[in-house]
C-alpha cells in the first residue's frame, strides 16, 4: 500500500525482537539485571561460596570485627556474618519466589476464568477478592505465625494468598479487554475449546503485565518477610536477611556493621526488583509507542538549527495571487526519522481555492491528503516540518517560503474565525462532558465577543439552519443522546457559527450511513451556496466529489498527480493512477466480473 505503512511495519519488526535488548540498554535495567543475577548465582552456589555453615558457631569469637577468617566478622553467637549473608540470599530469594508463585497460582487462573466467562464465577471470585483485600495483612500474618510457628515458608504462602487479588484483577482486566476481539471470535468459529482459546490467544496479553507485577511482588515479599523477622517473629534457626537484621539490631551499639550488611542486601534486592519491573514496563511501552504512532520521534538537533529568527510581519505575497482565498505552492511536509533524515509525506503540492469554490482532495489512505489539509489549518503535529513551499490565505502568508513550521501566531488569529473545520468522526469531536449547546456557545463568545444570551440565540438559529427539527432539545442534549448524523450536523453548525471564509472538511461523511451521508452532503452544498464560502473537501470517494466539488486534485503517495475541473477529471482522466482509482469504482460495472485484470500481490 502506501509508504508510511511500510515504514511502520519495518520499525515494528525491529522493535519486536528487541525487548530484552532494550531492558539492557536502560542503565537502571542493566544495574537491576546485574545485581539480581549475582544474587541468584550466590544463592544457587551458597554451599560452595560460604566458608562456614549457616549456624556454625564459634563461641570463642563473638561479635568480632572483619578479619581474614570471618570476612565480615561474626555475630553474638560467633556465627560467620558472610556465610549467613550468603545462605540468607538463598532462603530470602526462594521464599520471595514462593510467595509470588502462590499468588500467581491462585490469581492468574482465577482471573483468566473470571475475565473470559464473566457470570457467576466472576461475581463469586470478586466477592472473595474483596474479602481478601479487606483483611488486615499484618494481623493475619501474626495470627498464622502464632498458629503454625515461626516458619518463613508458611508465612510466605499466607502472604502469597493475601496478595493474589493483585494478580486476579490484573489478569481479569486484561482478559476482558481482548475477550471480544475478532481473533477470539475467529477461534470460536474454528471450534477451538475455551481452554485452547485462553492458552493460545488470551494468555499472551497477560504475560507481560504478570512479569512486571511479579518483579514488584517479589520485592514486596522480601520487605514484608524481613519486617516480620526484624520484629523477632522469624525462625531463628534459619539464616535469612530479616533474622540477621533483627540480630544486628540487638547488638547495634556493640557491632553496628552487623546491621549494615543485611540492610544493604535487602535494599539492593528490593530496589533491583522494582527497577527491573520498571525497565520491563518501559521496554514494552516503548514498543507500543513505535507501533501505534510512527511520528513520535523528537526532531533532531540538525533540524532545529535551521530555524532562523522569526520575522514579525509576514512577507508580502506574489503580486496577482492575492485574489485566491487559499494558495498552496510547492508544499512539502516531512517527519523526522530515527536516523535524522526527514521523511516526506507531502511532496511539491500546489493548488488554489477561490472564494465560493469547492475543491476536492482525493486519494487513498497515506496519500497525504489529510496532511495537506491540516497544514492549511496549522494543525500538524509539532514534529512535522515544512520542507519547502508556502501557503497563503487571503493574500497573506500563513507559511512563508523558507519557514519550516506553520506560524501558529498567524494561524490562531484565523482558525475558528475565518477558517473552520468539519472532522471525520463526529462523535469523538464533541466533548461528552458538556451539552451540545455549551459547546456551540463557548467559541462564539470567545471569537465573536458577543454575550452568552446572544450566542445562544445564534446557536439555536444555526441548529435549525442545519436542519435539526427541534433545536432547543438538541441544544440541551449531551453528545451521547444524539445520532451520528445529528452530531455531524451539530459540528457543521459549529463550523459556520463564526462566519468563516474557508471550511476544511476532512472526510465529513465517511463515518455515516449512506442515507445520512446524502443528507449531510445536501446540507453542506446548501450552506456553501448560501454563505458563499470556499470549501476544501478531503475524501476518498469520487461519488462525494462528483456530488459537491467544482474542482478536484488527486493525490498519491504525497504527490499531486492530477488536478482540474471535476467534469474533466472524472470524465476523461489522464493520469494512470486516477484511471485505476476510477476503474476500481463498482458503479456501472458488470456484476460478477473481475475489476482488475490480474490478481495483483501489492494490495
Amino acid at each position: 500500500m502506501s509508504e508510511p505503512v511500510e515504514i511502520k511495519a519495518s520499525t515494528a519488526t525491529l522493535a519486536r525482537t528487541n525487548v530484552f535488548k532494550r531492558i539492557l540498554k536502560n542503565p537502571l535495567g542493566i544495574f537491576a539485571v546485574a545485581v539480581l543475577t549475582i544474587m541468584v548465582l550466590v544463592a544457587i552456589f551458597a554451599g560452595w561460596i560460604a566458608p562456614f555453615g549457616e549456624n556454625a558457631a564459634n563461641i570463642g569469637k563473638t561479635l568480632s570485627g572483619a578479619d581474614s577468617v570471618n570476612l565480615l566478622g561474626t555475630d553474638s553467637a560467633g556465627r560467620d556474618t558472610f556465610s549467613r549473608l550468603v545462605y540468607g540470599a538463598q532462603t530470602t530469594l526462594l521464599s520471595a519466589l514462593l510467595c509470588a508463585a502462590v499468588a500467581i497460582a491462585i490469581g492468574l487462573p482465577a482471573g483468566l476464568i473470571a475475565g473470559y466467562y464473566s457470570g457467576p464465577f466472576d461475581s463469586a471470585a470478586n466477592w472473595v477478592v474483596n474479602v481478601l483485600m479487606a483483611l488486615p495483612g499484618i494481623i493475619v500474618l501474626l495470627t498464622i505465625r502464632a498458629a503454625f510457628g515461626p516458619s518463613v515458608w508458611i508465612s510466605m504462602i499466607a502472604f502469597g494468598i493475601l496478595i493474589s487479588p493483585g494478580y486476579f484483577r490484573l489478569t481479569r482486566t486484561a482478559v476482558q479487554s481482548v475477550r471480544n476481539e475478532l481473533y477470539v471470535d475467529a477461534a470460536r468459529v474454528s471450534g477451538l475449546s475455551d481452554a485452547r482459546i485462553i492458552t493460545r490467544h488470551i494468555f499472551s496479553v497477560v504475560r507481560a503485565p504478570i512479569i512486571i507485577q511479579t518483579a514488584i511482588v517479589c520485592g514486596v515479599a522480601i520487605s514484608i518477610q524481613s519486617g516480620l523477622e526484624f520484629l523477632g517473629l522469624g525462625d531463628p534457626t534459619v539464616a535469612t536477611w530479616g533474622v540477621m537484621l533483627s540480630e544486628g539490631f540487638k547488638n547495634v551499639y556493640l557491632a553496628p556493621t552487623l546491621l549494615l550488611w543485611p540492610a544493604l542486601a535487602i535494599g539492593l534486592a528490593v530496589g533491583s526488583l522494582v527497577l527491573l519491573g520498571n525497565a520491563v514496563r518501559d521496554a514494552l511501552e516503548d514498543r507500543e509507542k513505535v507501533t501505534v504512532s510512527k511520528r513520535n520521534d523528537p526532531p533532531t538537533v540538525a533540524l532545529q538549527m535551521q530555524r532562523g529568527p522569526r520575522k514579525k510581519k509576514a512577507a508580502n505575497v506574489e503580486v496577482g495571487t492575492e485574489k485566491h482565498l487559499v494558495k498552496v505552492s510547492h508544499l512539502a511536509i516531512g517527519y523526522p526519522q530515527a536516523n535524522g533524515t526527514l521523511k516526506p509525506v507531502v511532496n511539491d503540492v500546489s493548488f488554489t481555492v477561490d472564494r465560493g469554490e469547492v475543491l476536492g482532495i482525493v486519494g487513498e489512505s497515506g496519500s497525504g491528503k489529510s496532511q495537506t489539509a491540516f497544514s492549511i489549518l496549522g494543525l500538524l503535529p509539532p514534529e512535522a516540518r515544512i520542507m519547502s513551499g508556502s501557503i497563503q490565505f487571503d493574500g497573506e502568508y500563513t507559511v512563508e517560503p523558507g519557514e519550516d513550521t506553520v506560524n501558529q501566531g498567524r494561524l490562531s488569529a484565523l482558525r475558528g474565525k475565518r477558517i473552520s473545520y468539519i472532522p471525520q468522526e463526529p462523535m469523538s469531536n464533541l466533548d461528552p462532558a458538556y451539552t451540545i449547546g455549551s459547546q456551540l456557545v463557548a467559541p462564539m463568545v470567545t471569537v465573536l465577543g458577543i454575550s452568552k444570551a446572544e450566542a445562544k440565540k445564534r446557536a439555536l438559529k444555526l441548529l435549525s439552519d442545519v436542519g435539526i427539527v427541534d433545536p432547543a432539545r438538541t441544544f440541551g442534549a449531551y453528545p451521547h443522546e444524539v445520532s451520528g448524523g445529528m452530531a455531524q450536523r451539530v459540528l457543521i453548525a459549529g463550523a459556520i457559527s463564526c462566519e468563516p471564509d474557508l471550511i476544511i472538511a476532512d472526510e465529513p461523511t465517511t463515518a455515516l450511513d449512506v442515507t445520512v451521508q446524502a443528507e449531510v452532503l445536501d446540507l453542506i452544498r446548501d450552506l456553501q451556496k448560501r454563505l458563499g464560502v470556499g470549501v476544501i473537501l478531503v475524501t476518498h470517494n469520487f461519488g462525494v466529489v462528483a456530488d459537491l466539488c467544482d474542482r478536484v486534485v488527486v493525490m498519491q503517495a504525497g504527490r499531486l498527480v492530477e488536478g482540474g475541473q471535476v467534469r474533466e477529471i472524472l470524465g476523461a482522466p489522464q493520469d494512470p493512477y486516477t484511471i485505476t482509482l476510477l476503474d476500481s469504482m463498482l458503479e456501472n460495472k458488470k456484476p460478477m466480473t473481475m475489476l482488475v485484470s490480474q490478481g495483483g500481490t501489492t494490495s
Partner: protein
Amino acid sequence: MTGAFQDDLLVVDDLVVEYPSKGFRKKPFRALTDVSIRIGQGETLGLVGESGSGKTTLGRAVLGLAPVTAGTITFEGEDISHASRKHRQKLSRDLQVVFQDPYTSLNPAMEIGDILAEPLTIQGIGPTESKARVKELLDHVNLPSDALHRQPREFSGGQRQRVAIARALALSPKLIVCDEPVSALDLTTQARVLDLFLQIQQDTGVSYLFVSHDLDVVRHISHRVAVMYHGEIVEQGPAAQVTVSPEHPYTQRLLLASPVPDPDRQEERRANRRRLLDEQRASAELAAAGA
C-alpha cells in the same frame, strides 16, 4: 438464476435474536425479528443495511456467536441453532468467517503461519500436511511465501484481509460468512479483494453470506440480495432486481443515496432522490391521515 441453486446449503427460518438488557426486568433488546434467508451451493447472498440494522448480528447468529432466541438455522439439513462447541468444531470444516477489521481479526502475537495452521491443527491434520496446505493457501490469496514467519502488523490492511481470507479457506469450507470484509479497505484494494472473492468462488464453488453496508459492493458480488432495516428483512430477491429497481421504500432511498462518480448523473440522481423523499413523505402522511 435462482433455479441453479436447488440444494439449499443454509436455511434460516423466522430467526429472532434478543440480547438481555441491563437493568432488572427490563425488556430484552431485539436485534433480529423473524428473519428468513436461504443460500444455495455456490451462491452468494448479499446482505445490505445501515449500521444497527442487524445485518452483522445475522451473520454472527449463523456462526454461533449470537444467541438464538427463536427460529431455526439449518446447515446442510442439520439444525445448528444451538450447536455445542464440539458440534461447532465439526461445523468449522464447512462454515467459516472473514471479519470486517483486518487489524483485530488476526492475533497480533502470532505469526501468519501459525494463524493459518490453527484451524488445520484443530481438525487433527499433521504438521507436514498442514505446512504444505498453508503454503498453498498463501499462494491462493497471492501472498508471498515468506509471509509465514512474519507477524500481522508487518502487513497492510489489504494484505491482512488476504490472510484472514486464507484462514477461512484453510479447511475448504462450503459457506463463508463475510462480515463487511472490504469496508475497511482503500478503493483499489477493495477492488482486488473483491476479485479474490470472485476467483475463489469460481475455483472452489464456495457460498458466501456477504454482509455490507455498500449497495454497490453487494450488487457486484451477489447472486441474490436481502435488505435489512431495523432488524427485519424488508426486501429479498435477485441482485439485478433488488439493486437496480427496488420495491421497498427504504431500498429505493438507499439506492439513490449512494453518489455516482459523474457530476451530471449525480445531479440527476440527487433530483430523483429528492423527488422520491417527497413522494414517500406525502404517502406516509396520507397513510397517517387515513389511519
